[in-house]
């Protein structure tokens, strides 16, 4: 199989079982999209639980949502939208071969993701303070509803799973940042940036739905 005579046709990043870079790129992208489909269904289980419980206890959801701070939720939404924008910019920079801008945009993205997690941290600790713990540790008595614990279980599960995804995203993005500083990505090869970007946008989309479902219903 070796094809030493024509190195130009076989760039370093191209695996032997692909015919050309384009095939490899579009395969990676499709693989990522399929993975995102599985993510949607994994979160989907929780969304389904949300919808079913909400249909059973609409009044609970309105009451309990009072305990969530709309302003901080909105701020976090803006923060994530901003980070989506910077990821898109990082990809564009790669396509235009502006190597420094890839790193800058990735850096901003990571910073915004961290801001998101910090705000989440304060939201969580504030609730713990009130006794709003997940599951059977729930001790808050400000909501007159026998199933208030379930609302907050859903809240913690859904935002928690989302938070795990943000954290993973920060990890992936840091790795991309490190490699882009080494100059590994350019207009010829930026597949990892592209598909991590897709992942990040999905995390954003999920938050776009979580935000109104939890913060905007009271």
């Amino acid at each position: 199989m070796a094809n030493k005579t024509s190195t130009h046709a076989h760039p370093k990043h191209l695996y032997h079982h692909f015919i050309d870079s384009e095939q490899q790129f579009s395969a990676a992208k499709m693989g990522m999209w399929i993975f995102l489909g599985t993510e949607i269904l994994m979160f989907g289980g929780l969304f389904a639980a949300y919808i079913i419980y909400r249909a059973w206890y609409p009044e609970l959801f309105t009451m309990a949502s009072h305990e969530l701070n709309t302003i901080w939720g909105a701020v976090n939404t803006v923060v994530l939208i901003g980070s989506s924008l910077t990821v898109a910019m990082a990809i564009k920079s790669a396509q235009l071969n502006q190597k420094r801008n890839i790193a800058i945009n990735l850096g901003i993205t990571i910073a915004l993701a961290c801001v998101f997690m910090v705000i989440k941290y304060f939201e969580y600790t504030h609730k713990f303070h009130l006794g709003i713990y997940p599951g059977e540790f729930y001790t808050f008595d400000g909501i007159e509803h026998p199933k208030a614990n379930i609302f907050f279980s859903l809240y913690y599960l859904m935002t928690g799973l989302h938070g795990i995804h943000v954290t993973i995203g920060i990890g992936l993005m840091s790795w991309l940042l490190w490699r882009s500083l080494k100059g590994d990505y350019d207009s010829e090869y930026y597949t990892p940036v592209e598909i991590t970007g897709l992942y990040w946008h999905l995390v954003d989309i999920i938050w776009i739905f979580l935000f109104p479902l939890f913060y905007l219903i009271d």
Partner: protein
Amino acid sequence: MATAEASSNMKKVQVRRYKPEENADTNYLNAESGLRSWLLTKDHKRIGILYLIATTFFFFFGGLLALGIRMELWTPAATFIEADTYNQLFTLHGVIMIFLFLVPAVPAILGNFFLPMQIGAKDVAFPKLNLASWYIYMIGAIGTIFVIFAGGIDTGWTFYMPYSSTTGGAVTFMSFGVFILGFSSILTGINFITTIHKMRAPGITWGKLPLFCWSLYATSIIQILATPVLAITLALVGMERLLGIGIFDPALGGDPVLFQHFFWFYSHPAVYIMIVPGFGVVSEIVSTFSKKTIFGYWAIAMSSLAIAFISFLVWGHHMFVSGQASLANMVFSFLTFLVGIPTGIKMFNWLATMHKGSISLKTPMLYILGFFFLFTVGGLTGIALATIAIDIHLHDTYYVVAHFHFVMVGGMVMAYLGGLYYWWPKMSGRMYNETLGKISALLVFLGFNVTFLPQFVMGAQGMPRRYFNYIDQFQGFHQVSTIGAFILGIGFAMVFYNLVKSLFNGEKASANPWNSRALEWQVASPAPPHNFDHIPVLIHGPYDYHKPMADFQLGLAQTNGHEPEMGTHIEADKEVEMKD
């Protein structure tokens, strides 16, 4: 022939014939050696073998547990173990057979090995992910086995709430193990779909895709859409036990029936993850051993997709007596009947393929004939169970046990063994012993029927499943069933012996012992390290037995614009036109 301009979507390519090499020096087995070369391999064929070794081990382990169950049922109440141990035995048997054996069996072994070869690719789209999926599988599998030492688990493979949140034992651990196994299955699905879309060799249009690939495609769709829901459901079970989140646990205000919805949203489609790849194997073998073009190619291909889709609409048929709304019962019952349509379509097309074919009754074909008989019984009893009024009586009896063993063992395991024998020469480079193969096939068929036919009868008479004790009336059935289980066990052991023995003193296999037209048979046996040294070109479908063999051995005379390697002299002996 029109000029290039006239038919703009056709292009001319230079091809030449590449005859498969007999007795090639290097193959995928000896290209590299040492344990390291296996454990770090990215070759889809070797990963298939890794899966084969692991699943075979778990299959026999699960089988021993089954023999334990059957021996215990020789007499009512304690025969040689306690009720608690019995509960753990059937739970572990179910989990192992379903998650460790049936789900990965055909896709991860035969699919991994032959999907890339059938589409003329050098590997799957993501070889590293492929290896990762094996490691994830092993971690999940070892975790699952480890449960035995961590207190055992007695919930049954279905983990029903609220029992699973209150019983002792290692339920959390087990749900975590199965959670991990789910990811392995998802990665395989992602890999296969991308591979089929992106890696097909020139000329392999969707209409020339072997039906095995179509069935893996349908399976992968189910894997990626259903498995994540199982993952989150099991995560919720774990959370229920750790934090008491109360989504499913009625003691905390939750709804246990919701668990069943989520669980069966995965697990009904999952039964099709188990059987649909088997359908693909059947299509390949029926056509090859009837020496005839497959009848109704598109009908078979599309019915796989139809089954994949419908399988998502029927899960409620497991919940007729769960307290689910009557409206849901009726809707699910009706939708379940629909599954019979695409399944029937397949059956008729296979039979029509055999009609007037020149059928050769080699071992693989014997398994497939067994499949026809057993799967039909399994499918039809499924339809009976989908009828609400009947299911109220039969639910949770041995009738259900017999039903799903007829489809899972009588269907899937038969197809799997058929496929294993069929492709064994390509995988191992050796021929198995035909006489022994046939005897063991008959023994498996016989043992299976002796084991499970009585279970239909006692189930219909009211013998509940998962019971340690029973009334005397059922003892005769149970004893026949136990005897059958041992015959079946001997059959499986003979299959194992036959295949392993062939590795040592089997006759050397030729490249194409069945005279198949499919692409995987147009290379040496055992398969070469990178499958093809050329880029294969297909001008006929994979089942066109009326076309000469030479037409199926074509490859690009030039390798995709690169200059051919020094020293090779490539000469076109033909020019073909194909869709761009």
